């Protein structure tokens, strides 16, 4: 018994859900439409589970062709789904975490839409969520690079839509363009990455005559390795765009403008890991291009460290998590770059659990403060003044929190679990997965190892800092004092995720190697070798993490931060901290290097080159006016310029004027005769002298 033929439903169900919500969402009400969305996502999860079950029995890859798509000559790309252990792993993560987030969001958005003053947006949110699930499922289940690309861009679109969900606001809730700017930025940065993937596809097709994974991998070894290197490097651009690696990561922090469930789902657990999935999927290609692998690993490791430094300096609860995500993605990318595909995937899964948990937890914190600030009783809507920018109450600012562990204990507990998992403390999930990466790195590339270890240290530090700032100490604002615990519909998913964060390590527990064996069916033994537990590495990283937490405690725990006080790190680090807070001025640098030059160049091209020069000058002045001028000159050789008006006077018979201008008043008939005569003379001259 297998359920492979059901696999298209992982896409259809969410699509069905979103269509339902589009058509009758308004009539279903909040509960109905969130239920529809949940069922759609949950259904996809069920189908994924069925795939898993089927695959457990028949672990080799299954391809389910659904329909023709593009079919020109050698280019044969059908809509075909690929069910293998790698894709099913992703399916399970996406739909599983996704479904949990659906549940959470049903509660969260109820409040959020009211705080943003637009209850009608509720349905829209779930439409987007379902759309995202569909696109993500296409991404992970497509049997060809092209189909993968459809999902790839599709999730980019959803990311755009969801980041810009409150398109008329700024992230702090005031009216403005910043959210939409963030959305735009995300889309464009993703597109830059997509360009790389596109180019990789062109090269793949030209060289190997197909875009289907099996055919491509089968033919890859016959291709000149330098081409493979080019292909894989092109792909790296795509990975950098989607998985927020250097230098294209800049969109992800801004993406926190989206509602918090979105940050959890898209910008932490699923979409951003697509790059990791892509590299894992393309393992046969990367293995043929060691230089590309090294590049990928170094890019990942550098990103991990770089983002971790920035995370240290952030005050926004979500921004810290955002940079942390970038950093963790760096771990994964570094892992797959090193050839440690299993480790990368392992970390991908565990990270999905604890980072989703953290984001959702932060959402719960934010909502708690928001509800304390403007209470909403029941479904009774209460208007509140739209805040002015700059003076807004920003529920995401950690500086106004503090002491929350007392008022929102559930959130605190799960958040703590997530934070420790992220910090990599045993026996939580993060410990195992990160450790596996570090172990592999130590074997493969000491530099990468060093970078990652440093990043791990910083990770523990900033998480410690965050937890201490948010939950410990004294409340630093009225809202923090009165914070309200979230309703069960939000906390239950948190608890489930917390459980997964604790137990996630079992997936590939040292010695058991569940995930390794599972993925071996797809990646082959060569790329899915088991990594043995390395006590030295484990101890090093654990000790470093503890040290970092201790450090954080000395700074933030021993003497809790007072309201409106400066961050203690600022004193210690001085201008370095300013640099961290300002994210190393990378955005500004890009603005200076790319955006503003492009804007100026485009304006120059459009206004000066195209319009003033090409349109006005070349056409209007040179061609049109030139012709006309020439024509006027030929028609009135004596009437040019100033004389024009005078000559008109002549026609009315102003004699005095006429005689004073007699030099112009040549007899016209004689002029004509002279012209005739001139014609004759020159014609004869030609015939007599030249013919």
């Amino acid at each position: 018994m297998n359920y492979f033929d059901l696999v298209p439903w992982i896409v259809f169900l969410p699509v069905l859900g979103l269509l339902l919500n589009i058509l009758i969402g308004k009539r279903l009400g909040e509960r109905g439409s969130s239920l529809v969305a949940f069922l759609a996502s949950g259904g996809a999860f069920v189908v994924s589970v069925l795939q898993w079950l089927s695959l457990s029995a028949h672990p080799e890859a299954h391809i389910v062709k659904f329909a023709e798509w593009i079919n020109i000559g050698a280019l044969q790309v059908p809509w075909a789904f690929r069910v293998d252990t790698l894709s099913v792993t992703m399916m399970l993560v996406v739909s599983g975490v996704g479904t949990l987030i659906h549940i959470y969001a049903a509660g969260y958005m109820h409040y959020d839409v009211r705080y943003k003053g637009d209850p009608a947006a509720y349905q829209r949110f779930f439409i987007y969520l379902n759309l995202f699930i569909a696109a993500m499922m296409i991404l992970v289940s497509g049997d060809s690079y092209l189909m993968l690309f459809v999902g790839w861009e599709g999730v980019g679109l959803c990311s755009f839509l969801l980041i810009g969900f409150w398109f008329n606001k700024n992230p702090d809730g005031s009216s403005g363009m910043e959210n939409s700017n963030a959305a735009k930025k995300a889309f464009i940065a993703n597109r830059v990455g997509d360009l790389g993937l596109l180019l990789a596809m062109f090269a793949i097709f030209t060289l190997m005559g197909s875009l289907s994974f099996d055919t491509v991998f089968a033919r890859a070894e016959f291709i000149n390795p330098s081409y493979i290197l080019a292909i894989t490097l092109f792909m790296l651009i795509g990975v950098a765009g989607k998985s927020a690696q250097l230098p294209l990561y800049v969109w992800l922090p801004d993406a926190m403008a989206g509602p918090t469930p979105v940050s959890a789902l898209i910008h932490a657990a699923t979409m951003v890991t697509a790059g990791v999935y892509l590299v894992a999927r393309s393992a046969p290609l990367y293995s043929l291009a060691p230089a590309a692998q090294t590049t990928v690993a170094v890019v990942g490791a550098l990103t991990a460290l770089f983002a971790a430094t920035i995370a240290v300096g952030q005050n926004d609860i979500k921004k810290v998590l955002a940079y942390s995500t970038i950093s963790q993605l760096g771990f994964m990318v570094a892992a797959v770059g090193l050839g440690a595909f299993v480790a990368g995937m392992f970390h991908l899964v565990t990270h999905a659990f604890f980072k989703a948990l953290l984001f959702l937890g932060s959402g719960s914190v934010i909502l708690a403060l928001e509800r304390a600030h403007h209470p909403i009783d029941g479904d009774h809507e209460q208007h509140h003044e739209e805040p002015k920018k700059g003076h807004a109450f920003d529920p995401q600012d950690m500086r106004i929190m503090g002491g929350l562990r007392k008022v929102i204990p559930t959130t605190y507990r799960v958040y703590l679990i997530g934070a420790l998992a992220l910090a990599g403390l045993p026996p939580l999930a993060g410990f195992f997965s990160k450790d596996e990466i570090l172990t592999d790195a130590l074997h493969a590339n000491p530099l990468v190892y060093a970078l990652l270890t440093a990043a791990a240290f910083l990770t523990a530090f900033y998480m410690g800092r965050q937890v201490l700032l948010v939950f410990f100490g004294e409340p630093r604002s009225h809202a923090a004092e009165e914070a309200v615990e979230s309703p069960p519909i939000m906390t239950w998913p948190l608890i489930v995720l917390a459980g997964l964060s604790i137990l996630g390590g079992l997936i590939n527990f040292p010695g058991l190697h569940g995930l390794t064996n599972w993925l071996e069916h797809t990646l082959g033994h060569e790329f899915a070798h088991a990594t043995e537990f390395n006590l030295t590495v484990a101890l090093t990283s654990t000790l470093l993490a503890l040290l970092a937490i201790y450090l954080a405690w000395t700074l933030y725990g021993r003497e809790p931060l007072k309201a409106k006080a400066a961050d203690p790190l600022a004193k210690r680090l001085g201008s370095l901290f300013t640099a961290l807070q300002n994210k190393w001025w990378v955005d500004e640098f890009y603005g200076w290097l790319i955006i503003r030059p492009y804007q100026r160049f485009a304006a120059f091209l459009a206004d000066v080159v195209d319009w003033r020069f090409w349109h006005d000058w070349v056409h209007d002045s040179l061609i049109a006016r030139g012709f006309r001028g020439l024509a006027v000159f030929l028609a009135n050789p004596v009437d040019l310029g100033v004389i024009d008006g005078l000559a008109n006077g002549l026609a009315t018979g102003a004699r005095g004027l006429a005689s004073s201008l007699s030099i112009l008043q040549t007899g016209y008939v004689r002029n004509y005769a002279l012209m005739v005569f001139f014609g004759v003379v020159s014609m004869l001259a030609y015939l007599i002298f030249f013919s």
Partner: protein
Amino acid sequence: MTADLILFFGLAAVAIGAALGMLLSKNAVYSALFLILNFATVAVFFLLLGAPFIAMAQVAVYAGAIMVLFLFVIMLLGAEQLLTSHKSGWQRPIAILLTLVLLVESIYLIFGRGRLLSQVAPVASDYASPEAIGELLFSRYLLPFEVTSILLLVAMVGVIVLIKKPKANN
């Protein structure tokens, strides 16, 4: 230089002189008279070239009738002193220059590249007799002759149309 040539050059000088006279006279009446002189000289050339009938026609029709008509109109309009003192601007030098160019071209053509038969044979005595011309006119040249008559008719109609004052109701 034979007598023929002397006669030719003499008459040619008169003809050209008369033409220049017409061209340069300030008084239109003098111009007309110079033109008559020119026509008469040309008539002599016709005679020399064995065209007595044409010479006669030239004197009678051209120098006589047509030029009298000219003189008559000049007198009628009192236009004889008109406008000769005005300058012509750039038109005049260019015109003269072009005329000189034309003359240079002609001379180069006639005496440089295209020298024509230098000797002309004597002709029979009945060459160009009125009979011969008349016969040709009514045989070979019947069509042009008739057309000419129509032409004169048309000219007559035209003159009437032009001279007649338009109807009073205008």
